[in-house]
């Protein structure tokens, strides 16, 4: 059953849960995934985001999120000035390309010339979000709970290895999905857990035979 605080809530910066609160969360999630100082951010907006972002403050909310502000942080309004202070260059592009959803943003985040990541996400309404792509790889990260995403070889034992390690650490899995490009090729596992996963466990997961890469997400 729904909590009364989801009925009268969330506390948020207006005007729109999808175009403002969701945008701030997308920015915050992108910041966490990038995991490095952001010197330049190029945001491409699609659909309704592209058409209405200035009126909804979607641009300010996205930048606020990149600065680490929450969806109820009064500083969202002034995020451009904050970005300027932090020497983060920000650019917005509008695209008419159909991304299959009305509220989509693509972040191109840079740390000087050293690193660059492309992160695509959508705002689902009511402040809910989903990151759908990281550097061209399809993902489904909602920022609602703790989650790991691993890239592995499609071979027997990988799923058991990862879930076994989580079990040993007494971390409960709330949902799990495994998909692959084709047999014996690249596969992806998305695991959501009820609690955080520490660095040591993540390293052990990375060492499971067949696992190539592990990404860890915390709720935003």
């Amino acid at each position, binding site marked *: 059953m729904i909590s009364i*605080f989801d009925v009268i*809530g969330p506390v948020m910066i207006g*005007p729109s849960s999808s175009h403002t609160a969701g945008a701030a969360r997308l920015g915050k999630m992108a910041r966490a995934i990038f995991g490095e100082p952001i010197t330049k951010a190029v945001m491409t907006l699609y659909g309704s985001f592209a058409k209405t972002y200035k009126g909804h403050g979607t641009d300010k909310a996205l930048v606020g999120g990149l600065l680490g502000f929450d969806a109820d942080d009064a500083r969202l309004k002034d995020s451009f000035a904050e970005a300027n202070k932090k020497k983060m260059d920000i650019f917005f592009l509008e695209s008419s390309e159909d991304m299959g959803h009305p509220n989509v943003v693509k972040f191109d985040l840079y740390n000087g010339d050293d690193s660059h990541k492309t992160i695509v996400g959508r705002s689902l309404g009511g402040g809910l979000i989903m990151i759908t792509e990281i550097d061209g790889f399809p993902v489904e990260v909602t920022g609602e709970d703790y989650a790991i995403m691993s890239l592995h070889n499609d071979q027997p034992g990988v799923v058991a290895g990862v879930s076994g390690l989580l079990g040993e650490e007494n971390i409960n899995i709330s949902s799990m999905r495994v998909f692959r490009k084709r047999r014996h090729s690249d596969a992806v596992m998305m695991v959501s857990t009820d609690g955080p996963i520490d660095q040591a466990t993540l390293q052990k997961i990375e060492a499971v035979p067949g696992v190539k890469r592990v990404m860890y997400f915390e709720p935003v």
Partner: protein
Amino acid sequence: MDYSYETIEDILRLCQEEKLTFDQVVLRNEMNQFERTEEDVLAEIDRRLDVFEESVKEGLAIDSHTPSGMSGKQAKQLEAHVPLLLGKLAYKAMTYSIAVNEANAKMSRIVACPTAGSCGILPGTLLALAEERELSRDALRKAFLIAAGIGAVVTERACVAGAVGGCQAEVGTAAAMTAGAVVGLLGGNERQIAQAVALCFKNLLGLVCDPVAGLVEVPCVKRNGFYSVHAITAAEMALAGIKSQIPADEVIEAMNRIGRSLPAALRETSDGGLATTVTGKAIAEHVRNL
């Protein structure tokens, strides 16, 4: 003891069987479901009531327009005007509700109740009533619980998003939550609270969501003012003992059916209604070129 409810009727039954008030049922269920103490739930309610108060203040202080030019300064203008027609309470509720939605449009902090587009009605009306009748914080907490219980039923049984059910789902739910809460605040019993919900909802069915330029401003901001008065009207009727021929749960069901049969153009897509008027389209063009 299980205090969970799916319908307004469930809440009424629990009130009767357990000799509890409407707000007590909602409070006990929240404590049970989420394993929280009473103190903890009430403290969180207080934090939201604080934001209610701040958002009214912020809205009344706004002295510039939004980037679209469609809203801003209207609450201030209303506060400066001496009401010629409306009573003091209705006028203040209308003004405060508009203030909160103007604060929302200006990127201030608000509480979605149940959505951002309908965030003014509940806080505006409750705080106006609290001022006019010198009600305590504790009374406001009870009103919050009554409103939340009503909103929870609508969320679970129907819809509260304009994109799903039109404005009747957003502003309609906000008004029904408010009507019930006002009845509770003025000493009405749980049956009268349910009547207020039915009367309020019944008389706004079919309200569409057609925001100009896709923004939460026109008609949303002023509409919050209008429907705070509508909520008070429903509460007044319920307190006078007026009964709805159709019970609250069935009205909510009707709202849901109507909402889902509305054309997509009138469900937050800005492809119809006010959004596609000559002026509406000109404003949308202006917003695109900002």
